[in-house]
């Protein structure tokens, strides 16, 4: 029997966790917001979501095949990237726009740098930034929820004064997502429910989202003239919930230590508030996170945790 025994270094017991389980949990967490997006923006949303997800998965499979690596599309990570990208695109966009974004996200941002875990930026956000720079008109053609696809402005553009003359939506519409915006960003409440699920499942800790959102709240209250309702709109409108819960928490492009994550989250919140309030552009979440992604290696370098028993 001797030579049949398996000998390996301890531990001999592994947790029942895997990449695909984690990524599947993210998809599950995004499902309510996905359904809300489809409900509010109808076929436009379906078209964008399918195009982004299919393009992401096919790109991943194709690149891994060509580079003779193990094809890992069943780990669900490409699905997550595709879905998150679709969430960041208006429902009125033509079908090829999300597809191009997904190809860019998977090929350039993820695979070129070594695949999963090696992307230094959030792939979906980087793709969104690329699309916004290349097709600014299509990327900001917001429509009202409903069947008619009437064009509208986002609540942030209204509250920020970039879109004058339009009525601000009610707080209730804002929370449930019955407002103009990208497909997945409008329903704050469903995004939060998904976030709670991710915390419950241990996929993320509340650290980054809570600190990020709190920083934006405090800054917009202080810089917005101590106006509570202005602060509320800054927190619940736009891409903040989506960005803070699902994009800033991207494993590979955010710090791993507690202190690092706090600095990262405060940085995201600070930049978001500054861009929104002083910039010429109503949204600030994507660029803030991308900037902090780039700063992550530096943050990691200076936030090495105190080792147990290490004397200060």
């Amino acid at each position: 029997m001797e030579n049949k025994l398996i000998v390996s270094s301890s531990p001999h017991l592994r947790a029942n966790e895997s990449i695909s389980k984690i990524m599947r949990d993210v998809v599950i967490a995004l499902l309510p917001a996905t359904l809300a997006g489809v409900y509010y923006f109808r076929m436009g949303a379906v078209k964008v979501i399918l195009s982004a997800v299919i393009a992401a998965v096919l790109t991943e499979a194709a690149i891994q095949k060509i580079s003779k690596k193990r094809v890992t599309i069943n780990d669900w990570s490409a699905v997550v990237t595709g879905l998150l990208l679709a969430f960041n695109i208006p429902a009125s966009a033509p079908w090829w726009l999300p597809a191009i974004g997904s190809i860019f996200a998977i090929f350039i941002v993820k695979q070129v740098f070594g695949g999963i875990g090696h992307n230094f930026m959030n792939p979906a956000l980087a793709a969104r930034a690329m699309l916004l720079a290349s097709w600014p008109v299509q990327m900001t053609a917001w429509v009202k929820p409903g069947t008619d696809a009437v064009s509208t402005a986002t609540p942030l553009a209204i509250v920020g004064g970039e879109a004058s003359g339009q009525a601000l939506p009610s707080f209730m519409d804002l929370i449930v997502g019955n407002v103009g915006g990208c497909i997945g960003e409008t329903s704050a409440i469903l995004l939060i429910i998904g976030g709670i699920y991710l915390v419950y499942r241990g996929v993320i800790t509340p650290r980054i989202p809570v600190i990020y959102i709190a920083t934006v709240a405090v800054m917009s209250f202080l810089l917005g003239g101590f106006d509570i309702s202005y602060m509320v709109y800054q927190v619940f409108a736009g891409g903040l919930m989506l960005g803070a819960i699902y994009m800033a928490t991207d494993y590979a492009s955010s710090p791993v230590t507690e202190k690092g994550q706090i600095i990262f989250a405060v940085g995201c919140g600070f930049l978001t508030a500054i861009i929104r309030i002083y910039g010429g552009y109503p949204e600030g979440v994507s660029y803030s996170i991308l900037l902090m992604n780039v700063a992550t290696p530096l943050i990691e370098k200076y936030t090495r945790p105190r080792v147990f028993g290490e004397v200060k």
Partner: protein
Amino acid sequence: MKLLSFRGGVHPPHRKKATEKLAVIKANEPKVVYIPLQQHIGAPCEALVKVGDEVKVGQKIGEASAFVSAPIHSSVSGKVKKIAKMKTPTGEATCIVIESDGLNTVHESVLPKGDISELSGKEILEIVKEAGIVGLGGAAFPTHVKFSPPPDTNIDTIILNGAECEPYLTADHRLMLEDPESIVYGLKAMMKIVNVKKAYIGIEDNKKDAIEKMLECVKNEEGISIVALKTKYPQGAEKQLIYACTQREVPSGGLPMAVGVIVNNVGTAAAIATAIKTGMPLVERIATITGSGIKEPKNLLIKVGTLFNEIIEQCGGYNGTPGKVIMGGPMMGLAQHTDDVPAIKGTSGILVLSPEEARLPEPEQCIKCGKCVEICPAFLQPVYISAYGLKDMYDKAEEYRALDCIECGSCSFICPSKRPLLHSIRVAKREIIAKKKKSK
């Protein structure tokens, strides 16, 4: 009662159900015992007997050749058949092979040593040393060494480890239920050696009956507190246990005595009690024989030197083909090449996993999820130490404090990509230490 704990750690499945309710039973008398002259780190013993000698139970057959060592004694009475190098659970060592005559005649030197109230601390320490007592938690470090701190150290606390945080194992749990008096007696002996007034017995909260039993047993004892600990791995790791009980942090690279504490396993305390009360040195111990690969899991009192396969045979044998045979628990235990090795003083359990459970997972790319950082009880960043280690960048690994790793295995356990984190950190540690030795 408020549960005490430490920061970090993981929650592996307990898997103690199979044996936690089973009373300890005496294992069958072995016909032949194979007693290694080296059972732990430190110097190997020198044999005191030669082939053909008659020996008795409790007779010293190996003398400690250095300070960090402990003598060994025969666990049977009979005849020395052979002295030769053989495979042992920790590698290879010279073993004294004794054929038992089945009579278990006790050696004349085995005599009660009196009560601790009459013995001086020095005398008790000598008894501990002569009885070959080592840490029974698994590492088997000679106990008398722990109790011989440099003269300027101020020891004020003794902690007994009854956490038994390793999944599957129930040996300490059963001991606490079945013989709490010996544990407390042994603890009082330890307190007398170093003249301290304060002691804790730390027990994980998943052993409520043991906590109650020990509480009952110490209610009239001064200075001994029972500490209920949160059930979390590695609650029984020395530095983490000290922190949980006293909120003191053992300095990096230092020993528990640096914060005035000595930690011992509950089994070690009971062994000291036996050595004082009956004079019988450490020749047997409780071990949990369990796992899905064992037909009838049991808690057995086994004699040092009994072969694993003989012990497993008494537990109904293997349940199908064994996949992995481990000495100790699944988190820190040692996988064995063969079951043809003898039980040693540090054999807290024999765990047999099925081939399915033993199958090594395919490692995937690190996704930098940071879970290993989040749970590391030493507050390290296993993700980076491992990555630098795998690239042979050992200076970097050292910079990330590889040497502070306590090798608990929590990082490898939690990793969703099934990466061999601890394994690579161990390699890095060895390289770093080797380099340090060279440059000296």
